């Protein structure tokens, strides 16, 4: 008995607290979310993979002799009013819309997380100032600024578009992270780190941030769902991408034309359904993740 005996195996359900495995388990348990995730991964692989072999220039090539073809052997999803292959546009459009969604989510997420973290961690005047900034951005007329941007910026690309959209979408996550950081900084482990001589910077990023990781993953996922459709509204108002950069929004907004809406479903409906499915799938995954982070709602 001459042994340190205190070290007991606490429990058999030893699981890594990384959060990731909890998230993963929740998804696997939730059939809908699992199917959604598989669907998403397949879509992404398909869309990004196949678009490597597609020639965007060829797809958006106008063909006067193939205008408004309904789906047939040559054009699986028919053609649009420029005689362009809708299926090809759908693939590239999905890729572009996904890229925009991901970019916007990442950019706005990064800004939001940084500001929220700093604001929540330091609190006080910094927090006050940051929150006023958030308030202010909330009331900015997003649409107008985007419209101005579209008209004055000559390089209207996926990148610049994502940047400008991100400028108006970081506030939500900043608020969330801030409130979590405010809670987190009251926890003793943060105080402990201070007494152990860690710098604020270190504490914020090495200590606090990992503890917010699951909530960040969840919100980013849900944001991604929202951001995929973000340019469709602008396309509808006529401020979307040029047609040479197909996107789901561009395809859907063809439905603006009553003739297209009524008689030529193949142009807009697949895109509309695809965006719906994508958003639902991402949302399903996000909701499952959300349940995972909220112990009380966890299934099983």
């Amino acid at each position, binding site marked *: *008995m001459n042994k340190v*005996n*205190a070290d*007991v195996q606490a*429990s058999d359900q030893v699981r890594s607290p990384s959060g990731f495995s909890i998230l993963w388990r929740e998804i696997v348990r939730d059939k809908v979310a699992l199917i959604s995730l598989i669907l998403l991964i397949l879509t992404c692989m398909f869309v990004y993979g196949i678009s490597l072999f597609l020639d965007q220039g060829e797809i958006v090539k106008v063909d006067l002799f193939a205008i408004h073809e309904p789906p047939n052997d040559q054009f699986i999803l028919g053609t649009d009013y420029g005689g362009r292959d809708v299926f090809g546009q759908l693939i590239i459009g999905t890729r572009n819309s996904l890229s925009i969604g991901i970019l916007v989510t990442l950019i706005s997420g990064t800004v939001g997380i940084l500001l929220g973290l700093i604001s929540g961690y330091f609190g006080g005047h910094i927090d006050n100032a940051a929150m006023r900034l958030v308030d202010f951005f909330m009331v900015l007329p997003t649409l107008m600024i985007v419209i101005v941007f579209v008209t004055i910026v000559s390089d209207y690309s996926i990148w610049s578009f994502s940047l400008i959209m991100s400028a108006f979408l970081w506030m939500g996550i900043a608020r969330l992270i801030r409130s979590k950081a405010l809670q987190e900084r009251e926890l003793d482990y943060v105080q402990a780190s201070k007494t152990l001589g860690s710098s604020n910077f270190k504490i914020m990023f090495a200590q606090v941030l990992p503890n917010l990781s699951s909530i960040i993953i969840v919100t980013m996922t849900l944001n991604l769902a929202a951001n995929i459709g973000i340019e469709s509204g602008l396309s509808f108002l006529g401020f979307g991408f040029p047609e040479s950069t197909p996107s789901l929004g561009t395809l859907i907004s063809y439905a603006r034309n009553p003739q297209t809406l009524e008689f030529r479903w193949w142009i807009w409906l697949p895109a509309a359904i695809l965006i719906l499915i994508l958003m639902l799938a991402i949302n399903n995954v996000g909701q499952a993740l959300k349940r995972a982070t909220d112990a009380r709602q966890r299934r*099983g």
Partner: protein
Amino acid sequence: MSNKLLEIKNLSTSFRIGDDYYAAVDDVTLTLNKNEVLGIVGESGSGKSALAFSIMRLHNRAKIEGSILLNDQDIVDMSAANLNKLRGDDMAMIFQDPLTALNPLMEIGEQISEALLLHNPRMTQKQRKQRVIELLNLVGIPRPEFVYEQFPHELSGGMRQRVVIAIAISNKPELLIADEPTTALDVTIQAQILDLIRKLKEEMNAGIILITHDLGVVAEMADRVAVMYAGQIVEIAEVHTLFENPLHPYTKSLLNSVPTEGQDKLHVIQGIVPSLKNLPRKGCRFASRIPWIDASVHEENPVLHEVKPGHFVRCSCHTHFYFSEESKEAEKNGIS
């Protein structure tokens, strides 16, 4: 017989974890008489609250087996409507955390008078208010008229706990369950609250189940004490007997780990309370924490034995129990 208020027989309460049910309260049998305080002690997670909630039938997703007879009425099979008549009237409960037990958006007065309203529908508004003020006075809240219109967050912890008590006693329950009523409070306030409960007991002639992990509180309040470990009652006895002549190794260890005068080294129980999921379902559940006692002395499926009148102990391992000096040595060695 007529003195018997509550009779619990072979009560098991199981929670669903994953695909299986695990018993947080396992085969508990006990009785409570009128005008008696039964203390229940045990470590965190030993199933004290689960037991209390079972008696009140407040679990929403637990499987309850066995019988709970309150005045010979079985609560386990009771319909929701009948249960609602009992709750808050014949039996009432004081909760552990006064900070969260009150509705933050409801006036104090309203929360107390709700309990009255539910069981005395014929009382007029005015009568109710009067009774609430009386109750607030009774639990020692100064300026009750003023507090009546306050909200929970405007009161201190001690005050809130008094409000919770006022709610519990509003209909003069025969059975009062107090689940760690003072854990969240300062010593001085704890003393006041305990005084209050004692006073109320005398006034109401109620049976009280007092759940706590503070042995001092039990020593001051209880007539009889039940010690719980891992969902089971391991020892029940009259309070003096238990404190002076504890039998179960767990009870002994508990008593020994309280800092008392002249004690240089406190006793330590090795290991930790096993979690619900990996409870040994067979054999003495405390066995793993006294490794120096030979396994053979533990019973296969221990039951409560009445060793003396009114003194019950589970598992006969207590007859072989001694505090392990070796283990203390081991700890020292570990350090050096």
